[in-house]
């Protein structure tokens, strides 16, 4: 093992030790919160991306930057604030900031640029920011209820909506907090980013896929709720799980088709 490799391993171990409590909290949230359980897969995908691009960043000459220590200091302060009660989210952001600082210290801005995409993926394993989540939950519940009611009405099925409760011919459905669609949003957003990378798309196509993921996920969640209202058998259990999964697969298919359309549009422009 070269001196530089030993330094990288040592830095990684020190970071893991310093952020052990934060990482434990993140793993706990991934284990207990089904909206965030994809967090287990994010580090695996990040490691795969780093491995896949190894030729690219290996070619770069390390040019350590003192700015890395500034980032490490900022990360340390954030971690301290998190430990004093600001919360897990601040600690997790501090962890990413500190990794960025360590990369700058060891390899410089060239390495940081080369590892920019894994850092973007790292955002998807951050814990929920409670104040944003709490504010977004109810409007998303109401939006899903509105979309579902609109779809059912458009299909000629009578529905009465009272806030987040749908009454479809006497069959009542409550769109609960957990049905706000954030699970689809997070999962599809992450997959949009990964898909854009796998297909080696242009940056604007990647951004377009990510932007499209939000409305697709929200509408898909509305469709899921509408289906549960229309067919009581889809309320719970295995049929419900299968329906939810199939709708997500359909969302992925929409992203694939969208990417092909955007690719063709780009090719057309180049001609």
């Amino acid at each position: 093992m070269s001196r530089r490799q030993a330094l990288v391993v040592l830095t990684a171990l020190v970071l893991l030790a310093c952020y052990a409590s934060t990482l434990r909290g993140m793993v706990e949230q991934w284990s207990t919160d089904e909206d965030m359980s994809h967090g287990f897969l994010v580090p695996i995908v990040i490691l795969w991306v780093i491995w896949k691009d190894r030729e690219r960043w290996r070619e770069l000459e390390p040019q350590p930057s003192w700015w890395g220590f500034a980032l490490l200091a900022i990360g340390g302060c954030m971690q301290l604030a998190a430990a004093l009660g600001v919360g897990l989210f601040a600690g997790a952001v501090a962890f990413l900031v500190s990794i960025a600082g360590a990369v700058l210290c060891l390899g410089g801005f060239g390495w940081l640029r080369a590892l920019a995409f894994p850092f973007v993926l790292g955002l998807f394993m951050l814990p929920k920011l409670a104040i944003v989540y709490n504010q977004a939950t109810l409007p998303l519940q109401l939006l899903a209820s509105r979309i579902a009611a609109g779809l059912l009405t458009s299909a000629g099925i009578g529905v009465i909506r009272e806030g987040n409760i749908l009454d479809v011919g006497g069959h009542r459905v409550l769109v609960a907090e957990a049905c706000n669609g954030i699970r689809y949003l997070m999962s599809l957003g992450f997959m949009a980013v990964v898909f854009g990378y796998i297909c080696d798309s242009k940056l604007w196509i990647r951004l377009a896929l990510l932007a499209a993921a939000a409305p697709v996920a929200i509408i898909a969640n509305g469709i899921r709720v509408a289906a549960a209202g229309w067919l009581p058998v889809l309320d719970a259990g295995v049929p419900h799980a299968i329906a939810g999964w199939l709708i997500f697969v359909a969302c992925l298919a929409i992203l694939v088709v969208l990417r092909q359309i955007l690719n063709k549009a780009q090719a057309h422009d180049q001609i």
Partner: protein
Amino acid sequence: MKRFAVLVVWSALSVGLKAQITLGPTVDTFAVLAGSTVTNSGPTVVLGNLGVSPGTAITGFAGIAPGGPGQVSGTINSANGFALQAQTELTAAYNAAAGAASTGVASADLGGQTLFAGVYTNATSIGITGTLTLNAQGNPNAQFIFQMGSTLTTASNSSVLLINGAQASNVFWKVGSSATLGTTSSLAGNILAQASISFGTGAVLQGRALARTGAVTLLSNSITAPAGLSGPPPPLVTPAPSSLILVFTALAGAVIYQSRKRLARSFGLR
């Protein structure tokens, strides 16, 4: 001997006939009810009716002068007969909750505990720091009644987790004076407060904020009256499969998509 028999029968009845609190049909439709004023700042969302009686002032909501950022899905009732009837029913529910026979002592901080159905009492105050879990053990009618002599205080980011069929509509917080919900805390149940109820910024209540004599003060909150505006509790739409399953499926699909040529060659398709 006769006294002993009476005691045994009384004890059996006490255990068998657990206190069941029900809200009246009018107050049941309210998510927020105050005695003096309802004051809101920020984009609060109230799912259910909102009212005040005998006071009259309601500020910070769209639909009532001078307007505001708050939204109410139901009706806004200022010192009308509907709100008065709700207050009468609130008094009955408050007295019933106060009179329920205690089955256990509630510690001053309920955070980190898991409690089963019952009536929990603290002569002074109750606080929640962290997560309080209420476990109905599969009984959707299980009631959780908390009686406190003075205040209910929840810390920032604290929460009440309902598991195994526990319903917010079956949780009652009988507060001897005032309740204060911390910033971004999440509480479940019906707060029956003798005086006032104050919400910290971003606090969420899955239940009802019902104050007999004082004010309800809101700051960018969401309050959802359980079971909608009327009728029996509707079934929940179960959430979608976990994000782990969704992303794992998608990644598996992506791997297959990436390896499609190699797979085709392996199966002799090309």
